[in-house]
């Protein structure tokens, strides 16, 4: 347990700001988690679960007097089935360590958030992390087969199994994305994916965004299912290239980055389909190995660093139906102009994610936040969501009413209470407080 001032301050913040919890407990087993949860439940002390604390939303920030339970000492890989393609790990195992463990057997763990070197599987489950590979491989909920979790009162819950269709599968999937408000996950069995023998990267610069969007739609329509499929607007191209030069054409209006995987014949055929969809006027650069493909993606991969180097910024993770990308980009331009901030946008062109980086002057935080909320609401108006990847946490809780009716939120809240009771687990997150208003 960590109870000193210095240690408590270390856990006061995640990727967002926060204040110190009463104390931090770092258990080493499910049984120890049960014991802590039982004690806190009996004492009426709320518990805030925490993985690596990499989230941007305040999802693991302490609220009020609470006990923080961290999983960083639960780092064992418990079992690996090389035929079935599953691996069982403790919640504190880092995302990338899973793939490292199974790599020699030909498998990998597909959900790949940008923070994969540091974020934990428990945290991934809390936010239902996806990443750039979501289009082809799904998010965490699609890649978890079994969970061990501890309810607020210390009860152990085992759901799912290494077989398909096991008791509790649905409840296990419900825990994915529940932001630690239903139970504290201690172990997970994860489904693995075969590593493709060939990985190619493609880079397609476009002179106008409409052409790029039409080409993206045609590629998906043709049945290509890329491993990664991102579309950068002009500002995002210049932001990435300035920080980490990779040969992106800085005067292009849009840049489509594609990663393909499969047999040689599959990636060749899909590369030809992509070139044809773009048309003869688009110069397609093809990287015919995993290393060269990674080099094409390097600029895009470091966009968070690029934005940070530029100064203060807010990163958005809205979601819209694919056919409304054009309208979403128009709305972003309007809102950025109206609020006096600079917007750079990357679309996960296959799953609807809109990552807009709003870069602003240090003294314009409130204005940038208003702009961010206006864009998030625009995503909802287009048929989408306020969050595609980061989750809701504290930062977007008041926007939930824009996306869901009162009846919908009340049902979600009843489910939360059915699991954890009032305020016992990660209180104050996700659900809007009617007393607050949204900055917009």
């Amino acid at each position: 347990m960590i109870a000193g001032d210095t240690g408590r301050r270390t856990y006061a913040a995640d990727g967002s700001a926060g204040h110190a919890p009463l104390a931090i407990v770092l258990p080493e087993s499910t049984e120890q988690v049960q014991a802590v949860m039982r004690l806190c439940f009996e004492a009426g002390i709320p518990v805030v679960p925490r993985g690596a604390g990499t989230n941007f939303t305040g999802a693991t920030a302490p609220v009020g007097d609470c006990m923080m339970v961290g999983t960083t000492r639960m780092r064992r890989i418990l079992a690996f089935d090389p035929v079935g393609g599953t691996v069982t790990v403790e919640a504190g195992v880092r995302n990338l360590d899973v793939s490292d463990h199974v790599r020699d057997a030909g498998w990998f763990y597909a959900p790949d958030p940008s923070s994969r070197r540091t974020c934990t599987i428990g945290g991934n489950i809390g936010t239902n992390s996806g990443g750039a590979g979501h289009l082809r491989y799904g998010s965490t909920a699609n890649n978890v087969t079994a969970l061990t979790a501890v309810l607020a009162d210390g009860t152990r819950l085992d759901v799912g199994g290494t077989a398909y269709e096991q008791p509790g599968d649905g409840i296990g999937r419900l825990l994915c994305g529940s932001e630690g408000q239903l139970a504290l996950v201690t172990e997970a069995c994860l489904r693995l994916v075969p590593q493709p023998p060939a990985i190619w990267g493609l880079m397609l610069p476009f002179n106008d965004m409409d052409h790029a969007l039409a080409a993206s739609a045609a590629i998906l329509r043709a049945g290509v299912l890329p491993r990664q499929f991102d579309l950068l607007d002009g500002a995002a191209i210049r932001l990435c290239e300035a920080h980490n030069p990779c040969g992106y054409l800085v005067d292009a209006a849009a840049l489509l980055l594609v990663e393909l995987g499969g047999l040689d014949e599959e990636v060749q055929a899909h590369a030809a389909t992509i070139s044809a969809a773009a048309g003869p006027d688009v110069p397609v650069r093809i990287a015919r190995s995993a290393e060269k493909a990674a080099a094409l993606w390097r600029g895009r991969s470091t966009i968070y660093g690029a934005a940070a180097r530029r100064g203060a910024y807010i990163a958005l993770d809205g979601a819209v139906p694919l056919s409304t990308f054009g309208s979403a980009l128009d709305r972003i331009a309007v809102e950025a102009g109206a609020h006096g901030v600079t917007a750079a946008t990357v679309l996960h062109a296959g799953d609807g994610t809109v990552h807009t980086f709003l870069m602003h002057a240090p003294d314009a935080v409130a204005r940038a936040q208003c702009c961010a909320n206006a864009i998030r609401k625009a995503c909802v108006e287009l048929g989408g969501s306020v969050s595609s990847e980061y989750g809701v946490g504290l930062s977007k809780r008041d926007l939930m009413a824009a996306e869901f009716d009162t009846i919908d939120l009340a049902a979600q809240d009843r489910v939360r209470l059915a699991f954890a009771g009032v305020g016992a687990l990660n209180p104050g997150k996700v659900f809007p407080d009617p007393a607050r208003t949204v900055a917009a």
Partner: protein
Amino acid sequence: MGMANAIDTVAPIRPRGIVRYVPDDFVITAHGDTPLAAVEAVLRDHGQRLDFEPPSAGPLLADGPPTMATVAAMNLAGPRRPFSGDARDALIGVRLANADGDIIRAGGRTLKSVAGLDLGKVVAGSRGRFGKIVEVTFRVRARPETRCTLLVADTYVEAFPARVAKEMLAGLPVTGATHLSAGVADRLGLTPADTMLIRLEGPAPAVRAAAARFGQGATVVGNAASRDLWRAVGEATVMLPPAGGALWRVTVPPAEGGTLAAALQARGAETLTDWRGGLVWVRLDGAERTPILDVFAAHPSATARLVTGPAAATPPQAPTPALDALSEKLRQALDPAGSERAGIHQMGSAP
């Protein structure tokens, strides 16, 4: 941007029962009582499909062709299950009517969203326990360019899961892997020696290259026959026994499916082992005379359910008190005025 995205202007397609379908969104929203067949027909017209391949008949669907609500409520999935997931994986939004008359919406209609609790995940497979499913939104995918089915002779069922894993790890675009015991192959009109079915899907050059790996030991099935064959595998109607027999459906870790099927065959059962080992349909004609429940018991990671047969053939289920208590709390949360049996009637056949 002046005109925004050109495809913005495309009007949604709305045949009867479809609430919203813009093909380039790769999402379809339908009323719960829309027949699965109607949705599949619309998708086919636009070169798309429900990737999880829900069956439209068979022993699990005794009430007749399923509606979209049934697809979700029973979490249906066909032979593509290990490669593309099940109904729960593809269900991205749902509307649920409870006994209070509330319509609860969960999820949305974008391919990805993490805002709020994804109640659809627990509604899928709930058999209507949490309320009546009045609307569903599923992710859809483009149909691949080419499909090829191979019959691979002389594959021992014990070695089947490892063989399929080996081909997957070689990067082959496998989207179906099934093993048939001799009697099942015979009833499907295949020669008994043709024991393993492999389906490959993707661009033509990749499918050709993948098929070539199987060499002389494999026979290619024609396209029309291939479609019928995979439908038959998914529906498993061929596994229904005559009077006095029994049919079990066993889900098992894929690596164990081969040894389980072999042990059952040694007791005189016919087996259809799908999902690359993860699903074993077990048919035993004259079930009273040859008890095989001890074979299931030897695989504690498996879940065996009696689909049809004498009550004595029901495998014991391990009690799950914590889970049962939580499931009941969930029902009370989602359908406070409902009863245990609420929603069960929606499992009926399509109108």
